[in-house]
């Protein structure tokens, strides 16, 4: 399979975004965009939506409910002990533990969710079209097969919109 891609390298966020809008207007499909830091406009422009916050909320809710239920079970049902005359269901003192474990649950569960959804795991082979996107460059890639015979037009648009470099490359997973 031909895995050739067209790669546009940009100097900053603004020129990148102009190019993204121009390319989309002309009907090209963007393969992927690599940026040195998260750029929310990119996610929006590529039409991607994240339900990550909802997932985090559900983890937090389940975590809090689970911890409270566990403490209620241990302190009230299974092994009631009288601490200084306080009721066995010492609810205010459960809250601190609940907050801490809820945070831990959300953090770990979010991490695993992200890893699964993004298919990232230790030792995975990765694709890095242009190593400079880990430094200070913004990199946009297009599948050459999808742009068909309009490759020249695409390269023209990228150059016109301020790409510092446009080239073609066959992408291979790296270890």
């Amino acid at each position, binding site marked *: 399979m031909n895995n050739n891609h067209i790669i546009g390298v940009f100097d900053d966020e603004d020129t990148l975004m102009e190019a993204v809008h121009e390319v989309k207007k002309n009907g090209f499909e963007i393969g992927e965009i690599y940026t040195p830091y998260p750029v929310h406009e990119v996610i*929006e422009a590529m039409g991607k939506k994240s339900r990550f916050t909802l997932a985090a*909320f559900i983890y937090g809710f389940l975590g809090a409910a689970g911890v409270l239920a566990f403490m209620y079970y241990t302190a009230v049902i299974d092994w009631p002990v009288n601490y200084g005359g306080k009721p066995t269901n010492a609810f*205010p*003192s459960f809250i*601190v533990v609940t907050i801490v474990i809820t945070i831990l649950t959300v953090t770990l569960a979010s991490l695993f969710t992200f890893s699964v959804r993004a298919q990232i795991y230790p030792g995975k082979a990765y694709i890095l079209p242009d190593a400079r996107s880990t430094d200070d460059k913004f990199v946009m890639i297009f599948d050459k097969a999808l742009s068909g015979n309009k490759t020249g037009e695409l390269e023209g648009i990228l150059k016109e919109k301020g790409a510092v470099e446009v080239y073609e490359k066959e992408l291979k997973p790296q270890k």
Partner: protein
Amino acid sequence: MDTKITLSKGFQYTAIAMITAGAAVIIYSFIAEPARAWANLLLNNYMFLSLAIGASFFIAIQHISQSGWSSMFKRVPEAMMAYIPYAGIIMLLLYFGMHSVYHWTHEEALAGDTLIQHKSPYLNIPFFFIRMVLFFIAWMVMTRLIRNASLAEDAQGGMLWFEKSEIYSKIHIFLLAVTFSFASFDWIMSLDVHWFSTIFSLKNFVAAFFHGSATVVLVVILLHEKGHFKALNKSHMLDFSRYIFMLCIVWGYFAFSQFMLIWYGNIPEETEYFAHRWHSGFKVIFYVNFFINWFLPFVFLLPQVLNKNIRVVKTIAILLIAGQYLDLYEQIFPAVLHHPVFGITEIGFFIGFAGLFMFITAKALASAPLIPRNHPYLEESLQHHVH
């Protein structure tokens, strides 16, 4: 661009009518029930003072962090700070009602109580008022400096006044941390003279910042609905509600910490405070307080569909002003009156003080252009965009 606002006749008459109606109730209640009247005076004056102090802290934070997004709205907290001198005058009136409100001012209480005797080098009437005057002088000087720097920036432009505002704000925050802590110890905590809590001042300071910020947001929204602040967009609303959301968590943290440690420690001299506040009708207030000040903002400002919605944020801000009243009611009334009361006196006092606060804030708002002219970050504020 001239953005000066003019106060409508209707607004001025409403405010004056509120002050007049309030004044009538206030005068009547001082004749009929002096103790209740003094408690109400302390509650309402402290409440609106705390909103003004919270607003001054809000703007000081904006200066120190060199925030761009909020620079368009800086006149609103500045205008709210104008209440501080009036609060000072009303607070000084407390001199005539000390015996009705503060148990430790009674000679016979002092004579037979070693704990009050032990505290008397600090808690005595002359020193109480010396401190009060010093606090108000500090706040008046600092807020005036911040306000004047802002007005001078309008007239002259340049970076000089922007930098000066930042320096004044640093001094103001430092002074506020000390003075407002002692002020809340003096005016509120000494109502229960045998009880003490070291987190008390922090909780009250955060409450002032929390509810002051909510009031800033409410005033901005009201002005927006009147056709001002046309550049107010979803991003501003998101940042405003983030402020309220963050502060509701901090408030809940401190309020709950104070309660939980006392409840868990279960030492008689500490638990008497909450034991007293769990008697008869007061217990409802304890729960409603957490519900309004923590639960409602937390739940309703969490999803982005709600916290960018002007009407949701407006409702929450109005509820939070009621929440600050309730929080102070819980702190002041059980100590002074021993049983829950709420009637025409409480409503009259609140309306009177709310009218005064509205009138002073609006006058201060109208005295300068609503949108600052030469703030270096003004353009960023007008174009503010976040995700």
